[in-house]
């Protein structure tokens, strides 16, 4: 830190833990790079319909399977749709699916973890065996079975992904709350007659916030990948709605794979770049919330 030498250290107030975490996060170069990629991507994806002339499903009959050019920056696909517009729309769908499914799985994961830790031995054992079971089956298999029942579309995809991803979180929340349950302030709150909702939301939730934030960030990257994987296999988001996965699905036809690489390479690159950047941010947050990381 260069600024520290100028400020007189005696007057400086001690920083709170959140402030210190924020400082650590800002100092993390990989996390900054992640933010540098993710923020423009999110802005572009949210606002593209105001500044990009083509709609994702508009057909330009004069441009079919054309490569990148001044008018269609990333080329066009087999029916003359603009690849850049579909890429941005696909990103929008991916983000909507990811954010919604993560929100749902956080609620389920936190509640299951909380109830397991505060609910007594029988409830705990039952819930954890259930979590074990959900984690035994290979995730993609589970995803396929669920998707075969739920069908395609945005809402079923969100449902399927969120049903798949809560068990890991509920494990972490349970571990944290089991430790918290024995702390003096929780014992005191209990002694004063606090009920389960008070314990969970006044004491449990604030003390789990770091787990939840880190999980949410990393899980958004994961959910983007799951959605892309499902759509790639022809489940998940069905055409004509665009998604990075079903744009990659086009490359399963040999002609597209061999002759029109811009139709699948750009969505692939967007996918990897976004996921990588979000993972950097997630790792940065995890290190930032870890008080031991100042020692290294």
């Amino acid at each position, binding site marked *: 830190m260069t600024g520290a030498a100028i400020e007189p250290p005696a007057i400086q107030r001690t920083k709170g833990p959140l402030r210190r975490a924020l400082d650590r996060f800002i100092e993390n170069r990989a996390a900054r790079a992640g933010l540098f990629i993710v923020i423009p991507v999110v802005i572009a994806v949210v606002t593209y319909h105001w500044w990009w002339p083509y709609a994702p499903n508009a057909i330009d009959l004069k441009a079919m399977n054309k490569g990148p050019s001044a008018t269609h920056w990333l080329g066009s696909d087999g029916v003359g749709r603009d690849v850049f517009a579909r890429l941005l729309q696909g990103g929008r769908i991916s983000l909507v699916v990811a954010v919604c499914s993560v929100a749902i799985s956080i609620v389920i994961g936190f509640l299951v973890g909380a109830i397991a830790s505060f609910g007594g031995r029988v409830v705990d054992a039952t819930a954890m065996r259930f979590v074990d079971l959900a984690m035994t089956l*290979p995730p993609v298999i589970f995803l*396929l079975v669920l998707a075969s*029942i739920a069908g395609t579309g945005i809402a079923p995809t969100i449902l399927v992904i969120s049903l798949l991803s809560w068990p890991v979180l509920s494990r972490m929340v349970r571990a944290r709350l089991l430790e918290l349950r024995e702390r003096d302030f929780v014992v005191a709150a209990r002694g004063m007659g606090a009920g389960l909702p008070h314990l969970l939301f006044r004491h449990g939730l604030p003390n789990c916030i770091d787990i939840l934030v880190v999980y949410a960030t990393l899980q958004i*990257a994961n959910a983007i990948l799951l959605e892309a*994987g499902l759509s790639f296999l022809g489940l998940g988001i069905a055409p004509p709605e665009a998604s990075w996965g079903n744009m990659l699905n086009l490359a*399963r036809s*040999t002609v597209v*794979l061999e002759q029109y690489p811009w139709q699948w390479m750009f969505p692939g690159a967007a996918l990897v770049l976004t*996921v990588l950047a979000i993972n950097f941010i997630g790792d940065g947050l995890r290190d930032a919330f870890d008080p031991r990381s100042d020692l290294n």
Partner: protein
Amino acid sequence: MLSFIARRCATGLLMLVALSLLIFVLLRLAPGDPIDAYINPSMPMSASDLETLRDRLGLDQPLPLQYFGWLRAALSGDFGYSIQRSGVRVLPLVMERIGPTALLMGMGLAIAIIIGIAAGIYSAVRRNAWPDIAMSVLSFIGISSPAFLTALLGLYFFSVLLHWAPSGGMQTAGAPFSIADVLAHLILPACLLSIGHAALIMRYMRASLLEVLNQDYVRTARAKGVREFWVIIKHATRNALLPVITLIGSTVGIAVGGAIFLESVFNWPGMGLLLVNAVGTRDYPVIMGATLVIGVCVILVNILTDVAYAFVDPRIQVA
């Protein structure tokens, strides 16, 4: 030891029962009449025959009883008929797919283990040198890029542009069976499958070896005058391998997922392709059979890993 194995098998069995229950309930929620699964589509049935069959299968009974009926049939190998391919029984359909998938996954994991462990040892020993940093970045990319994308890119570069490998299938159509031919078809998907796992194994191996290298007994070995090479291989790596073994056991489940994407990109006639096609056509009997067989395999592998772990590490008390 024996009691440990027995206990582990018992929990495995419980898992299996729970898994079958889960699959049964999930697929009964699915639309359609479950009796369709048991009709051989090439032989039409009269309405009264249908009632007899429904009675025999117990589909007119409450759900818990139905589950036991289904389980009894499944245990004797009767998963019904595929809806999509008329008249084909599910069990042989699933069984003939196990071999190719096991081949692909075995080869992929073998490559991943060799490369991952070697690279992990190297980058732990040469910590913070440029190859270590380069490999760390590569492994981060390897972990972050999804199997279907690496599969497409690999297919595009090595089959389409460079013509180094055939572009799909397990054998050349029309050619007589030969091991060399299968290997030529196997090597590209297996290498692509290994990328993510090699990256993961490398990271674990590096971290675990770095921890072991700080231990006192490593310093003792060096002080005794043991050559550095043998300190790394015999004293450090053997102990650093323990957590990596657990990791390898648990990646088998993930590898099944990766294999699904590789199989469908490379048209490899394995379980993954079967399952994806069955899901695409809502062929529930096949989905059920395939999922159950995959689940059994994964649970078995997990048990084997635990037992192997107990064998390798005498510190684990098995009592």
